[in-house]
């Protein structure tokens, strides 16, 4: 036994025996699907005639790579599934490229890969093709993941940030800020204990539930970096409408709020990995809300506001009856004491 045992070596990415061993013993076995098992250069996917596809890609570099409620593998799968789901697309297959740092423990890699397989199963999607590279120690921090996804957009469906209309109800699928505060706590060693957990989750099931209620959903956006405030600003600009939300209606877990207050952060700008905002035809808003609450990822869904006529922008009504303008996030929020 030497020290390199149980660790990733440069040779694992060199394309030779070790690479094959890694692919077959780990990826093919855990991701377990036909297109991948063929180990061809590309995966073949069958599409119905006349179908529109959604296509998306994203890189994942979160640090630390494991944290309460998730890990880099889980968010790499969920993030891409969610990007597809925001167009209403049903995921057909995901590709996964892993960039591993030499010396990464095999055990850690196994856990991450398991977690990817679990997330894919939860989302009902297959990881049909992939690639693995190994870079020298120090050239990456642990591992990075790039996932791409292809999804099928149901006939006649058109969801876009441009579609918000005056009068639409603004709904969110649950509490905000859980992921961002959890990861910051783990990364910066802030020493917070308690019920902080990342919300990383696939939202395609939730979206299917929502879309089953009439064709009343106009905009979906997942609330990743930049949080709710940034997503609302993007939608408001794209649709040329004013969005007004109620501060008291915005759901934030007590512990997350306490963490935010201690660090001078605003939960409206903190990242989520399993939450969405929707603009929905007012008439059907309560039906959509019910459909959301029927899904485990939308139990705490609520209406937080309304789309109004006016100059593009986002306004929040405060509990004392005032108003506050919400701008896009600028810069990365750092924990502060002042």
């Amino acid at each position, binding site marked *: 036994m030497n020290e390199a045992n149980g660790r990733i070596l440069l040779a694992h990415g060199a394309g030779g025996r070790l690479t094959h061993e890694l692919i077959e013993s780990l990826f093919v076995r855990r991701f377990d699907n036909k297109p991948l098992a063929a180990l061809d250069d590309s995966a073949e996917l069958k599409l119905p005639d006349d179908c529109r596809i959604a296509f998306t890609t994203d890189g994942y570099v979160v640090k630390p790579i494991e944290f309460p409620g998730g890990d880099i593998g889980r968010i790499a799968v969920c993030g891409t599934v969610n990007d597809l789901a925001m167009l209403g697309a049903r995921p057909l297959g995901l590709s996964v490229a892993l960039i591993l740092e030499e010396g990464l423990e095999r055990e850690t890699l196994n856990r991450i890969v398991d977690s990817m397989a679990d997330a894919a199963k939860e989302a009902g999607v297959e990881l049909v093709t992939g690639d693995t590279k190994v870079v020298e120690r120090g050239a990456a921090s642990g591992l990075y993941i790039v996932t791409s996804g292809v999804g099928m957009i149901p006939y006649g469906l058109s969801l876009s940030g441009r579609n918000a209309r*005056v009068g639409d109800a603004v709904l969110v699928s649950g509490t905000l800020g859980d992921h961002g505060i959890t990861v910051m706590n783990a990364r*910066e*060693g*802030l*020493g917070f204990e308690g019920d902080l957990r990342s919300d990383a989750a696939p939202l395609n099931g939730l979206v299917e539930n929502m879309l089953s209620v009439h064709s009343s959903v106009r905009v979906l956006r997942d609330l990743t970096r930049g949080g709710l405030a940034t997503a609302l600003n993007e939608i408001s600009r794209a649709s040329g409408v*004013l969005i*007004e939300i109620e501060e008291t209606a915005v759901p934030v877990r007590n512990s997350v709020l306490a963490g935010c207050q*201690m*660090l*001078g952060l*605003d939960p409206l700008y903190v990242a989520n990995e399993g939450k969405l905002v929707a603009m929905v035809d007012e008439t059907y808003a309560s039906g959509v809300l019910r459909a959301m609450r029927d899904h485990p990822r939308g139990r705490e869904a609520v209406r937080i506001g*309304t789309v*109004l*006529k*006016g*100059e593009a922008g986002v*306004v929040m*009504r*405060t*509990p*004392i*009856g*005032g*108003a*506050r*303008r919400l*701008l896009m996030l*600028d*810069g990365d929020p*750092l*924990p*502060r*004491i*002042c």
Partner: protein
Amino acid sequence: MIPAGAIESVRATLDEIVRRSAEICRRTGRDAVQIMEVCGTHTMSFAASGLRGMLPDTVRLLSGPGCPVCVTTPGDVDRAVWFARQPGVTLVTFGDMMKVPGSAGSLSDARALGADVRMAYSPADALELARGDPQREFIFLGVGFETTAPLVAATVRAAAREGIRNFSVFPLFKLVPPALRAILARRDHHIDGFILPGHVSAIIGLDPYRFVADEFGVPGIIAGFEPFDLLEALPMLLRLCRQEKAAIDIQYTRGVPAGGNPAALRILKEFFLPAEAVWRAVGAIPDSGLAFRPEYDAFNAVRKFPGMPAHDPPEPKGCLCGAILMGRILPADCPLFGAACTPETAVGPCMVSSEGACAAAYKYGLTETSRWKKSRRRQEVAVRS
């Protein structure tokens, strides 16, 4: 966090503010009662709660020098960067200071170039880093006011007791009352009253502010940071403004006993001596900083790492932060505001810190007040119909 049905009492309070401020304006013949909120957290609370936009035109809020980031000079940032670049040294700082530009970049830039700069939530966490890696030197960047300095002193005391030798502090602390004196000493100030910082006062209590009323005839209220605190503090202050004799009072009674925190004051005395400090964009103010007592030289980074550059680069051209922090003009009066100077392209310190007067004004759209109020009315109509 406003109890149900409180909107009514908010209205009543606002009515009182309208009435009292108008009355004062009639008496003084000026267009508005000018109130300086000394503390950046108050600046943020006024804006984030929407209260700022609800106040009548007869109340004008001025943001004071109470943001430690805003008042740290570019020279001091350069020196912090210099410490961070010393071989074998890790500089530990509150996240607040990461992006404040010196003459050759910020600590965040220095980190990108290879310096070991780490963020900590607490000075105790910085000491913990030092405990865990005795071969490295850890320097804590000691920024802050009276609220923060005692924690750093307590951390140094812990290090001394444990015999930890690889921990020191670069002290850049500032004190609030001397800054208020500097503002008031300029006879051209137009400050009718102060909203005084609640958490500084939790340490120093009420007495150190008495001179504000006694020598300069300006009243002040020590206030908390919740919207309802501010709603209570404003009428209290306006009532004081009307009185013959100026006085200082406490609204934030749940957190500020008149005597402050005696243990914290003791430890401040034990470790530090008052010293002149240079406030960014304001200048040198006598006795407004804290220097380590000579017996603690071993924990004073300035003593421990000789050779610190003394150069003080000039303030950025065109920036009017100094006049803003002194309460003489408003952010929107600066020609660079919102144009050349935004949070992403900050020219001056008031735009860098998220608590800075210019950043708050920018973030909450305070430039557009009058237009804003009109469009709000339109929205309300839209909601109803």
